């Protein structure tokens, strides 16, 4: 157990200064404004600058990693595509053929090649293993037909980490194959999807897309195992326990809520009610602010899948309550006359809803908690793994 402050010696101080300088230079107001406008989670210059620093996959000690991570997050750096690139890279390093690995690795590290996730299908929801997008072998190539949604960053990536069905005749987890499909291949069509949170993601259509076998990752029909690494990382986080990593994969959302809370406290101190008093003078207001502070602290301290759910509910409930407290001004977006602190409360309230879905809905995580933490029996459903054969239990 250790909650002490990390002593920043001269070298660490120097690194922190370097990071601050980097952030000031590359995560500018313009970068943030562009991100609020486009919601794409990506800025080319920033991504390349990260590459130049060696920070695409930083080989840093844990304290430096943490300093870098928190600084970028606090500056609202648009790095969604960086995170998907990192997730996929681990599968590439493990499963790609040697020549593909050798070709891609330097480009990824330089920031020139980026990866997105081709998991979800329009009818599939959280049941990724039910993928219907077909890949059929044709000599040294595969012919891919189907459609994926929520392929965030596809417009800024060179490859998608694509899950396809290569054998529909076997239980669903056993007929899947993974590809690193080049997005410039003929037949790939990318269409934008916009969310109420202001993000841009994509629908990607695959029409008779021919992809050479060298882009296959892992064995034919062995795709589920290839996918599981990145998927588990997305579900559970990396699991460091030295106190220099987040305890759950939603922690950045809890920190967003903490920033919203601080904005609301400042509002409560300065706004005036009809009788001239400040909202902060009202104990019923302080109780609600206190409740939110408690939720944020608890969410950051709740591990694994439990924390994942807690964070999302903290943000959903808390952002809604902050809007209630502040009133209609809280719903004025960034750039509107009278909006509070850059519209963070408006943004958080819209953004919050998606956090109950990203990387698996909160119900999926409750199932994981029930089965893997509490040891409760798996639901008996026609399409669940329990019914499609033995040997597939997680």
């Amino acid at each position, binding site marked *: 157990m250790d909650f002490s402050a990390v002593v920043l010696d001269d070298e660490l101080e120097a690194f922190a200064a370097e990071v601050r300088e980097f952030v000031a230079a590359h995560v500018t107001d313009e970068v943030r404004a562009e991100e609020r406008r486009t919601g794409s989670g990506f800025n080319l210059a920033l991504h390349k600058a990260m590459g130049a620093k060696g920070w695409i996959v930083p080989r840093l000690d844990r304290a430096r990693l943490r300093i870098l991570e928190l600084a970028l997050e606090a500056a609202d750096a648009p790095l969604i595509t960086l995170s998907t690139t990192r997730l996929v890279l681990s599968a590439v390093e493990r499963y790609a053929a040697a020549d593909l690995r050798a070709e891609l690795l330097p480009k990824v590290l330089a920031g020139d090649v980026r990866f997105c996730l081709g998991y*979800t299908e*329009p*009818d*599939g*929801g*959280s*049941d990724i293993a*039910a993928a219907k997008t077909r890949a059929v072998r044709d000599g040294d190539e595969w012919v891919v037909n189907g459609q994926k*949604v*929520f392929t965030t960053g596809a417009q800024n990536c060179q490859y998608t980490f694509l899950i396809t069905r290569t054998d529909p005749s076997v239980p669903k987890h056993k007929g899947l194959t993974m590809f690193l499909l080049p997005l410039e291949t003929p037949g790939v069509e990318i269409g934008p*999807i*916009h*969310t*109420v*949170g202001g993000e841009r993601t994509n629908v990607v259509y695959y029409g008779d897309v021919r992809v050479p076998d060298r882009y296959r990752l892992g064995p034919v029909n062995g795709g589920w195992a290839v996918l599981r690494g990145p998927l588990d990382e997305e579900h559970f986080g990396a699991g460091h326990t030295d106190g220099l990593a987040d305890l759950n994969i939603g922690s950045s959302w809890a920190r967003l809520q903490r920033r919203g809370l601080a904005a609301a406290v400042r509002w409560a101190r300065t706004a*005036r009610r*009809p009788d*001239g008093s400040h909202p902060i003078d009202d104990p*019923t207001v302080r109780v*609600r602010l206190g409740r939110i502070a408690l939720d944020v602290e608890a969410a950051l301290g709740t591990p694994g899948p439990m924390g994942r759910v807690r964070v999302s509910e903290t943000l*959903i409930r808390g952002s*809604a*309550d902050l*809007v*209630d*407290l*502040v*009133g*209609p*001004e*809280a*719903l*004025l*977006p960034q750039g*509107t*006359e*009278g909006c509070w602190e850059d519209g963070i409360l*408006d943004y958080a*309230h*819209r953004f919050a*809803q*998606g956090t*109950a*879905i990203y990387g698996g*809905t909160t*119900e999926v995580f*409750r*199932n994981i908690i029930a089965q893997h933490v509490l040891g409760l029996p798996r*639901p008996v*459903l*026609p*399409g*669940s793994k329990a019914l499609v054969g033995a040997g597939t239990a997680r």
Partner: protein
Amino acid sequence: MEQSFELRRNDYSLSDDQEAVRQAFAEFFGQECPTTRVRAAEPLGHDEALWHQLAKLGAVSMALPEPAGGDGATLVDLLLVAEEYGRALAPVPLVEAAVTARLLATCPGPGTGRWLAGNAEGTELTTLALHPVRPGAPQLVPGGAVARAVVGLAGDDLVLVTAAEPPRLAPNQGTAPLAWWDLSGPSRQVLATGDAARGAYRRALAEWKVLTAGALAGLADAVKRLGAEFTKTRYTMGVPIGSLQGVAHPLADVEIAVAGARNLTRKAAWFLEHEPDARPELVPMAFAEAARAATTAAAVGLHVQGGFGFTLESDVTLHFRRAKGWSVLAGDPRAELLAIGDRLAATVH
């Protein structure tokens, strides 16, 4: 709160006349106001043509005093209209206009007839400022971006403030036609003062809250239906997701909230119409409950649609943004709980 030794009926059923009103407006909105029209009216949140149509139907005038052109409808009838209006997310400031028209009919002043008539006939818009005026502090006024006149309470005075043109829209998540109005300027006309002013304003605010609660209850019911329908046809693990308790039970909880909020709102309207001093706490109760039902229904309705529900293609996002937007128009909806508690403290012995 309710006295113990009095036997009261607790009957929420609609009379045939009430059912006819409800159905007429349900049909009107169903035909005239699909979500495509709601979307087309964004970002202003106002559809001038719809406003004319609604006024022609008598949506604003029907519950005016008869000398002012009303046809004997009550606040309960108006509430039923508001429920359907909310269900359709109709892009017009109907509640504000109806309440302000009733207020102007109660507290007329020289020249106010044209504003009243404008609201009733759909040719002009006058709206209500929901907060007492603080000198020099503009406030966000609902309908304020399409109105040329606003009624508000400034100190002891009920005042009417006009403008040559509506001020600029304050774009907002709820896509309501909000605008900043400074009601403390010199160009205001006093309609009433003292107790009369405060009483009339308080009454108008109560009517606004009850009718907005009705609109929120209607919205809640609509978004609940959208969510529930989605889960009947979307499959996971070989079953429709609506058959899973993890989806079905949150929707059932929404049904519980919606059914309760609708009835509570109707009861509040009935008392406001027939015995306004008997159960004043029903107004804050209805507002707090409808706000909670609507925001919960919208969040659940969105969530059960998974990733799709979160995209702008999904109609539930229209409901989601308005559920919150309407709930906070008059400020913190949870402040209503204190009003209930204050009344409780004063009446329970």
